[in-house]
C-alpha cells in the first residue's frame, strides 16, 4: 500500500497545486506528477488509503451492531444527504457532514458531497459513457447556452487514454450517439434482461438495450483485481476493481515521488497577483487547527467538484476580480445543470420462476438515447434527449408476501418474483438563472461563506420527463411485463448527483469562464476540469468526460509551462 507523503509543512512552494482529490483531481495529480511536476493535492477531509481505510468492506449485516441502521445523531449529520436513500452505516463515513457544511436551498436542491481523499470517486455509480458530437454541437444547433469550444475529435484520443488506465467494461456497438470506449469484456445480462432486450429491440427499431458500460474491471489491470460481484463498492473495494482515485490515480501519482497530499485542508481562495497577472497560490484553513496557510505554485488545478470549485472561485476576490476569479463574464456560478432522476417504469416478468443468477452485479442495463438524433426525426415537444438505466432481478419485497406463519417462512426463503425497471436521465439545458451565489450570512464551521443554490428544472426538462415515463411504460408493456407502473418522483435538481456548469467552457471570454483547454480566460495558469467546466449536460453520465478533459488540460498545462507561456 502506498504511504502518502502528507508532510506539507516543510515546503510551501510546488510546481502545481490540485484542489480536491476526487475523480478529476486524482487524474490531475497523476498526470502532473507523471510529467515531473512537484504536485501538492489539497484535500478537505481525511486521508483514505486504499484498502487500509475501508473499515466496512467485508462486513456482513450481522457484523454491524445495528445491521446498517443509523442513530438519530448520524442521521442528523447527513440530514440532507439522507434523501438519496444511499446512506447506511456501511458507508456513512464517506458522505460529507451536512451540519458542518451548510448550504441554502433557495429552491429545493440536493448537494451530495464526499469530503475525504478520493471524494465521491469512492461512492459514484461507475457508469461511464463517451459524449458525442450530438452533445458537443447541441448548444450551437438549438441556441441554448453557448457553444462548446471543443468537438468530439478534440477529446476522443483523451477518452481512449483515460479508459485504458481506468478500465471500462462494455460492449462495442458503433452507435454514433454513444461512441464506443476502449473496452474490457462486458458484464453479462441476466435471462430476464435478455428477454426484455429482445422484445424491446423487436418492437422499437432504433432502440437498443445494452449492458451498462462501467468503470469496473472484468479482467485484471495494472495489478488491480477484477470484480468479484459482491456489490459492496461504496465501502471501498479491496480488489481495486472499480475506478476510484484511491485505488487507481493517486497511487500512480504517489509512485512518481512527486506527490504531496495535504489532508484537512479547506481551500479558502486562490491567490491572484494583480502585478503578475496570474494566480500565485492557494490559501487554506487547516480544518483541525484553523491555521491559515498559503501554498504557492506555478499552475493550479481546481477539482473541488462543480459547486466546490465555483465556491472557491467566487470567494477568490482581488482588485482585478472583484466578483470572483475569472468572472469577467458574470457567468461564474450560473448555468447550473443536473440530470433528471427517478422517472420511468417498473413491472413484473413472468415465466422465469425456475431461473436465478449468481453474483451481485454492480451494474444494470442501459438504453442509449434514441430521440432527436442527428439524422432522425425531431420532437416538437422538447429539444435534446434522454437515456435509461435499469435492470432486472428477483428482489421483490418479502414484506409484501400475503402470508404469515409457516406459509410465510416457506415463501420467504424462495427468491422473489422477477421485477424489471428502467429509469430515465434527461439532459438539462443551461439556464443563466439557475445559479449559485456566495452567502455571507450563513457560514460554515470554519467561518467561510457558503453557497445559496437557486436552480430548478424548467419546461424542457419536464417535457423530457413526461416523454420518459410514456416511453418507459410503453416499452415495458410491449415487452410483456405485468403490473407495469410508471413513476415520476419529481426530484428537484441535485438528486442525479451530476451537477455541472457554473464555470463553463466557451469560445468567448465575454460569455464563459474557461477556454477550450479549461483555463480561466483571464488567469491562464488556473485550470478547472471538474463538473464546473461543462457547457451543456448531455443525457449521459459525465465522469468519464471529466477524466478525459482533465488529462487533456494537464497535457496542455505542462506543454505551456515548457514553452514558458505560463
Amino acid at each position, binding site marked *: 500500500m502506498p504511504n502518502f507523503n502528507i508532510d506539507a509543512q516543510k515546503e510551501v512552494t510546488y510546481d502545481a497545486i490540485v484542489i480536491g482529490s476526487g475523480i478529476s483531481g486524482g487524474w490531475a495529480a497523476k498526470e502532473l506528477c507523471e510529467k515531473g511536476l512537484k504536485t501538492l493535492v489539497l484535500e478537505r477531509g481525511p486521508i483514505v488509503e486504499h484498502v487500509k481505510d475501508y473499515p466496512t468492506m467485508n462486513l*456482513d*449485516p*450481522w457484523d454491524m*451492531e*445495528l*445491521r446498517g*441502521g*443509523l*442513530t*438519530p445523531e448520524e*442521521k442528523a449529520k447527513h440530514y440532507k444527504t439522507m434523501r*438519496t*436513500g*444511499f446512506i447506511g452505516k456501511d458507508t456513512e463515513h464517506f458522505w460529507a457532514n451536512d451540519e458542518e457544511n451548510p448550504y441554502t436551498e433557495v429552491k429545493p436542491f440536493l448537494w451530495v458531497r464526499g469530503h475525504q481523499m478520493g471524494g465521491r470517486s469512492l461512492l459514484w455509480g461507475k457508469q461511464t459513457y463517451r459524449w458525442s458530437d450530438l452533445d458537443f454541437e447541441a448548444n450551437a444547433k438549438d441556441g441554448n447556452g453557448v457553444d462548446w469550444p471543443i468537438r468530439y475529435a478534440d477529446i476522443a484520443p483523451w477518452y481512449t487514454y483515460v479508459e485504458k488506465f481506468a478500465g471500462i467494461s462494455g460492449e462495442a456497438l458503433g452507435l454514433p450517439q454513444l461512441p464506443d470506449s476502449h473496452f474490457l469484456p462486458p*458484464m*453479462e*445480462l*441476466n*435471462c430476464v*434482461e*435478455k428477454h426484455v432486450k429482445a422484445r424491446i429491440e423487436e418492437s422499437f427499431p432504433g432502440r437498443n438495450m445494452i449492458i451498462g458500460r462501467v468503470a469496473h474491471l472484468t479482467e485484471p489491470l495494472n495489478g488491480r483485481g477484477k470484480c*468479484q*460481484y*459482491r456489490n459492496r463498492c461504496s465501502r471501498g473495494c479491496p480488489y481495486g476493481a472499480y475506478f476510484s482515485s484511491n485505488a487507481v490515480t493517486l497511487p500512480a501519482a504517489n509512485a512518481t515521488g512527486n506527490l504531496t497530499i495535504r489532508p484537512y485542508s479547506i481551500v479558502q481562495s486562490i491567490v491572484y497577483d494583480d502585478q503578475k497577472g496570474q494566480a500565485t497560490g492557494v490559501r487554506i484553513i487547516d480544518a483541525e487547527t484553523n491555521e491559515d496557510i498559503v501554498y504557492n505554485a506555478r499552475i493550479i488545478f481546481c477539482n473541488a467538484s462543480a459547486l466546490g470549485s465555483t465556491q472557491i472561485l467566487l470567494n477568490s476576490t482581488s482588485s482585478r476580480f472583484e466578483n470572483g476569479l475569472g468572472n469577467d463574464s458574470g457567468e461564474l456560478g450560473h448555468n447550473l445543470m443536473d440530470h433528471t432522476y*427517478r422517472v420511468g417504469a*417498473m413491472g413484473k416478468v413472468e415465466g422465469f*420462476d*425456475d*431461473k*436465478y*443468477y*449468481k*453474483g*451481485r*452485479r454492480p451494474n444494470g442495463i442501459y438504453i442509449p438515447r434514441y430521440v432527436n438524433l442527428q439524422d432522425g426525426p425531431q420532437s416538437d415537444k422538447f429539444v435534446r434527449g434522454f437515456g435509461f438505466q435499469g435492470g432486472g432481478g*428477483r428482489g*421483490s*419485497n*418479502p*414484506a*409484501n408476501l*400475503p*402470508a*404469515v*406463519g*409457516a406459509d*410465510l*417462512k416457506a415463501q*420467504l*426463503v*424462495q*427468491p*422473489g418474483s422477477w*421485477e424489471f*425497471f428502467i*429509469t430515465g436521465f434527461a439532459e438539462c439545458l443551461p439556464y443563466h438563472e439557475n445559479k449559485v451565489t456566495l452567502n455571507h450570512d450563513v457560514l460554515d464551521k470554519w467561518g467561510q461563506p457558503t453557497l445559496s443554490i437557486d436552480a430548478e428544472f424548467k419546461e424542457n426538462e419536464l417535457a423530457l420527463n413526461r416523454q420518459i415515463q410514456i416511453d418507459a411504460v410503453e416499452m415495458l408493456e410491449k415487452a410483456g411485463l405485468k403490473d407495469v*407502473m*410508471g*413513476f415520476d*418522483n419529481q426530484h428537484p435538481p441535485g438528486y442525479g448527483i451530476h451537477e455541472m456548469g457554473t464555470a463553463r467552457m466557451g469560445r468567448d471570454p465575454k460569455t464563459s469562464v474557461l477556454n477550450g483547454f479549461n483555463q480561466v480566460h483571464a488567469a491562464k495558469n488556473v485550470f478547472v476540469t471538474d463538473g464546473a467546466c461543462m457547457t451543456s449536460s448531455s443525457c449521459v453520465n459525465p465522469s468519464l468526460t471529466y477524466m478525459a478533459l482533465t488529462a487533456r488540460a494537464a497535457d496542455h498545462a505542462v506543454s505551456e509551462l515548457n514553452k514558458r507561456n505560463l
Partner: protein
Amino acid sequence: MNRREALRKTGFLAGASLAAPSLLALLQSCQAEPRLDWTPEFLSDDEAVFVASFVDTLLPTTDTPGALDVKADMFMDKIWAHTYDEAGQQAVRADIAKFNADCTASYGKPFAELNEEDRKKLMLEAEAASPTFNGGVWGTAVGEQKPVGFYRSLKSMAIWAYTTSEKVGTEVLTYDPIPGGYNGCLPLEEVGNRYSL
C-alpha cells in the same frame, strides 16, 4: 444456546411442555410470573411480550429457526432504542397500544393473550387490509406510496431482523459473500434458497 433453551434455563418455562406450538401462549397462562428473560432498552415488558408474540406468530420455529430463535424481538428493541428519535419512538408505542386496543375490541384480549389460531386470523385480516410497499429504485420507493400501516411496517421490520441474523443469513438463506463472477441465468435448483446478501 437458542432463545427457547435460554428461556427454559432461566426457569421461565419450568414444567411447561416445549412441544406446545406457541411459546407466548404459554407465557400468558402464568401472568404472575416475570414475562421476559431479558431487559429491553426501549420497550416496556408488556410491549416486548407483544413484539415477541407478533414475531413468533409471523415467523414461528418450524424445521428452520423462528424469529425468536434468532432473537429478532431483541434486535427490534435495539433498533427502536438506537435508531429512532423520540417522536418515532412515541409513534411505535402508540401503534402497539392501538394494535392491542383494536385486537381487544375484536377478539376480547390483547394480541399476546390470544391463542395461536386467533393471532394468525387477526394477522391475515391485517394482511388483507394493508397496502403493500411500492417497488424501489436504488434505495428509494417510486410512485405514490400509500401508508402501509403498522402491521406491514412491523412485519417488514421482523423479516429484516430475521433475515439479517447470522443464523438465517448463513444457514437458512443462500450465503454467497464473494461470488467471484456473475452468471445471469442459472436453474433455480442450483442455487436453492434466496440469497441473504
